[in-house]
Structure formats: structure tokens, C-alpha cells
């Protein structure tokens, strides 16, 4: 297993704490099982790459590293959207995945109906967190950003195209479009959200978008590789789950995919040159993504 960078562990801990608080602090009078299902997936062991991308991007774009704390609500919202997408992705009507994050999938644990409700609960909570944490202009911008990443040209479109492509030969451009929407869109939104909280300029935004775009695809390619070569004990999900789908490995083989993932990470790093030494955490992050085994 690749070594997790030190800054990453600290950031992970902060995000975990914020996620826990966001789903437990507020008074609750609903059906406990839905909240339990939400927290089950949201707080399950995870790398929190997207959330850390948000807080780190915020720290890089601002004058002080303490700004990262200001981006925590946005990071929490991003993680909620991501957890929601995982629950939906694993449903029997979709990928029908039995395991996620090293434990039974949400629908296996709580049933399909509760899982669907938990997913929608997380999705709406995400927007609630943003609305309550930020001033209206920033909140509006972040909500628009998230809605675009999730909506019919984002995650949902990617998931739909992915489902329709199962057991079908797809071309390379279609595969890229699926990945861009399913993975890349939220990666880009995560980086952009952090930059927006810091009040970053256009150049910084563009640099972070280029970083996130390349890193997102590298992340997905590594995912495809791990689906072929990974150990379920390490990855926390079943291997060969994507056997019926066309993946990057289908086009390039495992070695080629590894080479491309490394190149994408190098390109992502190159996009951060304008940030100088402030970019160190994100450079560590891309190195971690390129070498990850889980």
C-alpha cells in the first residue's frame, strides 16, 4: 500500500470530524434508519480525496493556510454528493455492487428503498450545508457549481451513459465522457469550490481546473486498474466488478494504463507551477493517486 502523505492524514481527520458534526449536531426528528444509512456510507473509511482537494485548493489560493477551515463546509458538501452517488451507483438497478468502502453496500445493509432515501437525503443535505455556511453570493455560486457537477450534464449523465453502455462496445470518446462526468466533474467542482471560497483569481481557477481534470482521469484510470489487479481486502470493493464494461485497461492494458495515469499526474502537477511551493500538498496528493493501491 502506498504511503499516505502526512498532510493528508491531518486533512482527512479534519474532514472526518466535520462530516460527523454535519450529520449529528443538528436536532433530528426524522426516521433514524435513514440518518443511520446516510452516516453509514458517508462516514465509512474513505480517502476523502475530493474533500481534501477542496480545502487544499482554498489554502493555496488564499494568503493564509487557515483559510482551509473556511472551505470545510464546501468539502463536506462535496463528500455528501460523492457518498450519495456511491449509494446510487451500487444499487441493484445500477451496478449492483455488494461491497463499498470495505463493508456491505448501503442497499445490502439497509435495503434498496432506505438506500435510495439516504442518497437523496445526503444530496439535499449537501446544499443545506452550503446554504447555511456561506454568505448568499458565495452560497449561490457554490450551489450552482454543485448542481452543474451533479445534474443532467454531470454525474447523472455519466451514470446514465455508463448504464446504457454495459455489455456494449463503446468507443474511446464515450468512455472518456463517462469518466469525465462521473468522476472528473466532481473532482473539478471540488477544486473550484475551494478556490471560490478563497476568492481566487481566474488564472488560479484555470490552473486548479487543469489539475483536477487530469488528476480526476488519473484517479479513474487507477480505479480501472485496481478493478483488474487490486486486492478486495485493500480496495474495499469487489474486483472484476467492471468486467462487463469497457475501461481504460481495455484500450491500453494494465501497463499502458499505469503509464498514462502517471503522465496525467505529471501534467496535473505541471498545472500547479504558478502556485510555487504552496502547491506541495497537491503535488503529494497526485503522487499518492498515481501510486495508490486502494
Amino acid at each position, binding site marked *: 500500500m502506498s504511503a499516505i502523505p502526512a498532510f493528508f492524514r491531518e486533512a482527512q481527520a479534519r474532514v472526518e470530524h466535520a462530516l460527523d458534526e454535519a450529520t449529528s449536531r443538528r436536532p433530528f426528528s426524522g426516521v433514524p434508519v435513514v440518518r443511520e444509512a446516510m452516516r453509514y456510507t458517508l462516514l465509512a473509511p474513505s480517502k476523502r480525496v475530493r474533500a481534501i482537494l477542496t480545502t487544499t485548493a482554498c489554502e493555496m489560493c488564499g494568503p493564509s493556510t487557515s483559510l482551509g477551515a473556511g472551505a470545510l463546509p464546501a468539502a463536506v458538501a462535496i463528500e455528501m454528493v460523492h457518498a450519495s452517488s456511491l449509494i446510487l451507483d451500487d444499487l441493484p438497478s445500477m451496478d449492483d455492487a455488494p461491497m463499498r468502502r470495505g463493508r456491505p453496500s448501503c442497499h445490502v445493509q439497509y435495503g434498496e428503498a432506505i438506500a435510495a432515501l439516504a442518497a437523496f437525503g445526503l444530496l439535499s443535505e449537501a446544499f443545506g450545508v452550503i446554504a447555511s455556511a456561506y454568505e448568499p453570493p458565495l452560497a449561490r455560486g457554490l450551489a450552482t457549481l454543485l448542481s452543474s457537477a451533479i445534474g443532467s450534464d454531470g454525474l447523472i449523465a455519466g451514470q446514465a451513459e455508463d448504464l446504457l453502455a454495459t455489455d456494449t462496445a463503446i*468507443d*474511446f*470518446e464515450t468512455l*472518456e465522457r463517462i469518466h469525465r462526468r462521473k468522476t472528473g466533474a466532481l473532482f473539478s467542482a471540488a477544486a473550484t469550490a475551494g478556490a471560490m471560497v478563497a476568492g481566487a483569481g481566474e488564472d488560479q481557477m484555470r490552473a486548479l481546473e487543469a489539475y483536477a*481534470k*487530469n488528476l480526476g*482521469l488519473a484517479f479513474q484510470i487507477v480505479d480501472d486498474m485496481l478493478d483488474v489487479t487490486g486486492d478486495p481486502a485493500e480496495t474495499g470493493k469487489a474486483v472484476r466488478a467492471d468486467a462487463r464494461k469497457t475501461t*481504460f485497461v481495455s*484500450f*491500453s*492494458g494494465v501497463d*499502458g494504463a499505469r*503509464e*498514462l495515469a502517471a*503522465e*496525467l499526474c*505529471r*501534467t496535473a502537477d*505541471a498545472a500547479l507551477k504558478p502556485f510555487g511551493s504552496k502547491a506541495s500538498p497537491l503535488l503529494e496528493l497526485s503522487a499518492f493517486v498515481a501510486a495508490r493501491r486502494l
Partner: protein
Amino acid sequence: MPENPQNVDQLRDRLRALGYLDAPVDRYVLGSGTSRAGAARFALGAGLRVGLLAGMLLGVSAAIALAARAPGLIATRRDALVLAGALSILFAVITALAVAGTAIAAAWYARRAANLTPRRARAVAAVAGIAVALACAIYLTLWWNAAQDALTSLTFGWNAAAVAMAALISLLLAHAVSLVILAALARSQPETGIAAGGLLSSRGFLAAFGVVLFAGSIALLAAGRETGGTDASPPPITVVPTRYAVRVVAIDGFDLTLAERLSTGGRLPALQRLLEGGYMPLRPEAGQAPDPARDWTTIATGRPPAVHGIASLEARRAVGIGGALTGPPAGMLRPLLYAADLLRLTTPAVASGVERRAPAFWEVAAAAGLRTSVVNWWATWPAPAGDDIVITDRALLRLDTGGALDAEIAPASLYEPLRVEWPRLRTAAAARASAAFASIADAELRALIVRSAELDMLAARLANANPGPALDLSVLYLPGLDIAQHSLLQRAPGSVSAMRERLTAIERYYEFLDGLVGALLPPSGAHIDVAILWPGRAGIREGAMVLAGEPIQGGHTICEDCVLGAASTLLYLLGLPIADNLESNPMTEAVSVAFKERHPIRRIASYDAVNMRRGARTGQPLDAEALERLRSLGYIDK
């Protein structure tokens, strides 16, 4: 549906096309090519971007080679920048138009081709790219080869580096052109699914093709050269002392027939001594108009004008460039320079030592450690920095004008005493010249003759400006006879008596010159005296190099092209080796057997050890004044 990538290279290309990975060249070349701009707009934009790339890469290469082909064109770093900039713009415009035209043609073809498949599109783009690569590699290699011929032989390492750079430039431009054509085809037929990539985007193919280009360019370079480069430093020039110092007086506009008649009458005793010694005919090249800068440089270097680089007295200086081009434009330069003339981008200038790329005999002697002096010879300005005396063809003008020295005299320490003494020297020369020609009744004729005589007397006076040890070689050029004859004979006088008076004045000038020669070359057992008698603008077909001195025996050398042998003969008499690349051997018929036995001809590969660097120009320039003076003396048309 586009074909799926078959390997990692293709996958990488497709990802680049989708905005991933780092593809700065592709992004730069295509620019907004993915937008919905029209075909013509895309073609123009891409053409402009590729043109800029080509301009930057090819313009600098062409400037390096052009500077080598036209010595003297670049005199300063600023000149190099201006020339590189101008050629970059030229290449940028030509390439931009060519690429834009090709892209429009590709789009036109794509709209009409019924059977355009992705495979065919990639083949079209690859063929175009490979053609560009080959043309570019051949062009750059030939330029490099030309630059080397003119400059110097470089080591294999440098050649390999230059050729590798040429191969890389060729590949880059080939990739760019291929990319533009593929994009133009894809934009015109989006439904065929032509995707980015292709042969010239494949790293494997580019690497292999680059190796082929490199090997081909090396082979081309080797085939185009008679001998390969060498790592050896130039051979040192050594001297075997002969006991004799050599004194050379060069007289322009000399009529041997007239001189022999006057000599027979006992009117030229000093010249007669020389004419009775060794005799080497010097014949101007048939069919060529006389040009003092070209002809005297040929005599001084022993190399033809194509080699020594001074093609004519008149040169052209480009706006913004300190250096100059001599001679009529040739080859691909012709249309460029004519266009520059029309646009007033060039101005007239005078040929100078900057343009000369072969060493003169006095420079070879100085490089061997002999103490030398040269006075008033053509194209000697700017004088090289050093201890040897070089009083250039602009020295008289500088002494007349005053002001800060601009490499007219070397060593510079000679200038100040001469400048202080100059008014007195001028006055004395004017008085002596007036006295010498007082018998000429026609005032205008007398003034013309006196002016020429003054010039010769001042030059002769400067030849004595040697504060150091005795000279091993002294060289003096006297232009007065040529100037006087040219002024007097260019227009026929109105009457026979006037013509007679002019001829008498010219004969008188020969006597005056004889007096100067007598004073400059008094008989001496320690010297070999040489007079180079050149017909100049007198319209005579033969001159001569005549020699006198202890080791010289009377003898007439028979040779077809002795002009090129003058320098090697003088070098031989100084005890210096003769370079293999000189066009002519020393003419030893006039040399005594004893001297030849003591001093057999020694050979040396080349005179590359001679430092040809000119002195730095730091003072007040006299470029315009030099041009004006040459006009007033009749060398350049007004």
C-alpha cells in the same frame, strides 16, 4: 464512429485532443481549432501560428548560414539580431501562407472527397508532414554545410549537434503541418470521425523518423564536403629567416610600356633597377572591369575574389546592420537585395576588411612573428588591434578630419604624434608636389596632378612612421598615378596640344614616382625590394611584380595567372611556408639558385592560425566621408 486507439501512443494522442496531458505544441498549433470558426479562419490562424514557429526556428538558422556566406554582413551582435529578425519574419510569412493554403486545400478536398476515411485522412496528413520534414532537413543541412565551408571546419560533435537540431526542427514542423491538415480534414467532415493523432504524433514513429532524418542529414553533410571536420587546432606558421627584409611598393595605374620607354631614356633610374631584376607578369582577369578593392585584395591574399570575399569596392549596408555585402548579389540573394534596394532598405558602403575572409600576406607574416607594416592598402580598414603597423585606407581621411580614432591606425599609439604633426606634413607635401609640377602650365591640370602627388607623398611619409625595431616587411600602396591618369584620360581633351600636355604631365608623374621609389627603396644588401605595378583603371592588359636585391636574379617568369602567385612569392621570400590551399605556388624563377637551395619551399596545410579579427570600432565613424572621398577621386560614380 472514430476508430478506437490501438496502443498507448494513440491513446495518449486522443487524450491530448480531449484536453488532457500536456501537448503544448498541439495546443499552440491548433489554437481555437476546436471552436466553430470557419475553415478559412482556422486555416489562417493555424498558418500564422505554424509560420511563427517556422520563423523562429528557420530564420535564426538561415541568419547563421547567410552570415557565413556573406562575410562582413554581420559586424556586431545587433546586426545578427536584426538579420535573424528579418529572416524570421520572411520565413514566418512564407510558411504561414503555405500552411494556410494547404489547410484550405485540405478542407476543400475533404468537402469533395466521397470516400474520405479516417485512415485516408491520416495518410494524407502523414505524407504532407513527411514531405515537410524531408524538405526542411535537406534545407537546414545544406545551409549548415554552406556555413561551414565559409566559416571553418567544426568537430564531428558540433556537426552532429547541429544536424540533430535540424532533425528536431524538421520533426516539429512536420508534426505541426500534419496536425493542421488532419484538423482541417476533420473539421470539414466531422461525421467521418477523424480523430487526432496519426503517424507524426506517434512517439515511436517520430523517434524512428528522427533517427532516419539525422542519419540522412549526416550523410548529406558528409557527401557535400570534400574533407571532414578535424579536431586539430590550426598548424602554427613558422618562419625560417632569410637574412632579407622585404620592402614592397605597390603602384596603381602603371603603364609598363610607357615606363620602359622612359626607363630606357634614363628618366626612371629607381624603377629601372627593379625592372631589370626579377619580373613576374600580373594580368587582370579578362572581361572584368577594374576594381581596386577586389584586385588589390586578390594580390594581397593570393586567393580569387570568390574566396577572399571582396567582390567589389562598392558594398551594400542593410538598414539596421553594421556589416556590409560586397559585390553584385548572386543566387537566391539577388531578388531579395533588389527588393531591398527598391524599398530603400539598403544603402551604399565601401568594401572593408570586415568582409575579407582570407589573410593578406602581411597578416600571415605577422602571425609568424615577423614585424610588419602596411600603409594605405585597399580594404585594410578597420585595422586589427596589435603591435603590427596597419595604416589603413581610411588613415589619411582620419588624419585630415581629426577626432577619435575608429580603427583607422594600429597600433593606436601612432595616431596622436601623427595627428599633431599632420598639418605640417600636409603643408610640406603640398609644397613639394607643387614644386615638382610647377612646369605644368595648365592650372587645372596641375591641380589634378598635384593632388595625386600629395596623396602619394603623404602615404610614403606614413610608411616611415615606425617607432619600433626594424621591419621585416613593409608594404606601401600608392594610388596617385591611377587617380591622376583616370582624371586626365577619362575625357578626351579638345585638341592634340592639350592631349600632348596631359601625356607630358603623366610622364612627369612617373619621374616623380621614381623619385619616391628611390627614396623608399634605396639599394641595400639587407633587403629584397619589390614593386607591384598594376594597370588599375589605365586600360592596359598587363602589370608586373618586379624584384631586386641580392638573392634576385634577372628572369622573366612565365605564368598564366601570376596575380594569384604574388602573395605566395612574397611569403616565400620572407621564409614563410606556403599554404596548400593557395591557388598558386611561389614564382621562383627570379630567385637565385643559392637562395632556393637554402630555402626550399615549405608547405603548410592552411593559414587558419592567422587571426582575422578586426579591431573594435569605438571612435567617430567616417563611413559617409570615406564614400564621399572615393566619389571625389573618381572611384565611385557620383
